[in-house]
């Protein structure tokens, strides 16, 4: 076994920063009061929540009273979509989204379809992009919501959010964006970008798990998803998770402080990885857009081999990565995202996602480039599909 450990799966989740943990710590045991209570013990927690809300608002360019804390990114997505759908169903029942959304959006839309809503799933091009024109064409008189992710979780493609926001606003249609992968990685401004609703999730930017936030522009008509007490100004019930809220605030502050510098660093790691892997390993395809791409995202499809095997071998070498395919998600189907950008099912099975984060270095890339070609080669040697390929017979079906 190997003592080296390199984490290249920051899109799945991130380690909490020590500063975030420190900020949270007082609220676990010491300042445990329920923020809705009136006694002194509760006061610090309440204040801390509002400070955290201010931070999120500041980062997103919204107002503090437009920020609502949720139990996760998934909850934020569910709330945004179901909440707007049910609150506006007398205006219309049509929703526009894309075919490459996260399941938190896709499955919510599918649920709404079973409840009488009509959903258009826009196709994307080979790079994973939708165009504003496509969105515009899909708009119908009964369209009430457009939900398009800011950046894709598998292939990292960044959508033309500003343009879509603009045309949605002009037509008075609500615009939601799942920015779970984008926050902390690319600059966002809900006002400039005409975003009405935006979802984010703490654990994707070195904050805690089990906490998210939904930005809801003042005036947006939305029903609650969690009914109950009057927390979050009556819109999202449940005793506030003070420590996690504080952690999210701290994390978003830290993640966006040097966002440009950090982004440059990640892009350097990303681009070198892409370049070198494509140079060293034959029969490989880069999934996603070359430029409109999350700074830390790399996604390859290797021919003749299957992704989980690559992951397991990388894991034995101390590298944690993921695949867009089957195995991680508990499902056996190839990634709907890769299929949507036109990758064949067989090739989709051979995908590998590497997502860099703040602690990664060029040495990590060195090491990756050292071990990955051998792993791919070894698995190809074992693959019945590779037999005789080296002799010129390039590919089975790309």
């Amino acid at each position: 076994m190997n003592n080296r450990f390199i984490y290249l799966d920051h899109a799945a989740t991130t380690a909490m920063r020590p500063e975030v943990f420190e900020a949270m710590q007082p609220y676990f045991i010491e300042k445990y009061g329920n923020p809705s209570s009136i006694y002194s013990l509760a006061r610090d927690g309440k204040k801390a929540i509002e400070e955290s809300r201010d931070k999120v608002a500041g980062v997103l360019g919204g107002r503090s009273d437009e920020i609502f804390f949720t139990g996760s990114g998934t909850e934020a997505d569910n709330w945004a979509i179901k909440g707007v759908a049910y609150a506006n169903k007398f205006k219309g029942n049509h929703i526009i989204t894309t075919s490459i959304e996260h399941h938190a959006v896709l499955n919510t839309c599918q649920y709404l379809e079973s409840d009488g809503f009509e959903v258009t799933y826009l196709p994307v091009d080979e790079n994973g992009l939708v165009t504003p024109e496509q969105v515009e064409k899909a708009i119908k008189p009964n369209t009430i919501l457009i939900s398009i992710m800011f950046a894709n979780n598998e292939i990292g493609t960044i959508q033309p959010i500003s343009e879509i926001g603009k045309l949605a606003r002009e037509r008075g249609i609500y615009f939601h964006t799942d920015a779970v992968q984008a926050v902390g990685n690319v600059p966002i401004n809900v006002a400039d970008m005409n975003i009405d609703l935006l979802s984010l999730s703490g654990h994707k930017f070195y904050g805690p798990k089990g906490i998210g936030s939904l930005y809801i522009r003042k005036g947006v008509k939305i029903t609650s998803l969690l009914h109950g007490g009057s927390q979050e100004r009556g819109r999202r019930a449940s005793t506030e998770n003070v420590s996690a809220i504080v952690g999210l605030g701290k994390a978003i502050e830290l993640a966006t402080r040097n966002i440009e510098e950090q982004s440059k660093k990640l892009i350097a790691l990303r681009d070198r990885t892409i370049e070198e892997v494509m140079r060293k390993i034959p029969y490989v395809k880069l999934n996603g857009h070359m430029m409109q791409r999350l700074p830390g995202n790399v996604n390859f499809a290797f021919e003749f081999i299957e992704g989980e095997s690559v992951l397991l071998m990388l894991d034995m070498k101390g590298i944690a990565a993921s695949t867009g395919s089957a195995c991680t998600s508990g499902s056996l189907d190839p990634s709907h995202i890769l299929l949507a950008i036109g990758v064949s099912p067989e090739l989709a099975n051979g995908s590998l996602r590497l997502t860099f984060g703040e602690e990664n270095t060029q040495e990590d890339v060195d090491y990756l480039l050292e071990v990955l070609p051998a792993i791919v080669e070894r698995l190809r040697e074992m693959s019945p599909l590779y037999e005789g390929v080296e002799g010129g017979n390039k590919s089975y079906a790309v």
Partner: protein
Amino acid sequence: MQYSEKVMDHFMNPRNVGIIENADGIGQVGNPQCGDIMKIYLKIEESIIIDAKFKTFGCGAAVATSSMATELVKGRTIEEALKVTNAAVAEALDGLPPIKMHCSILAEEAVKAAIDSYKEKNGLLVEKCDNNACGKNCCNIHHLEKFK
């Protein structure tokens, strides 16, 4: 995904990888769309499997079950080999995660297909399977309800 140590051992150090030139029986099951292909080569002398090799495209469990299946059939008669069930393969690996049980079925079917090809070549095949779900078609296996 939690694989047993045995699975990881057979994945990282697979036994019998490779091909047998002039094999007496070759069986291939699965297809790349489903994410798994197993190809098993058998060398058979006087109804005894004296060598077995495989090539597999697939996940960790697919490699490990191929490896284990070839180990289990080596030295056996073809009749004995035909009785090596997917459960036996999985058990020999100290179990498989539920969503990976289909790999053990694939391994069982790959062995059967290789023996079938041997029998066919040697005029021994009495009954033909004309049921699509019998294992010749990967996609039927993958979507068997009981493995969902």
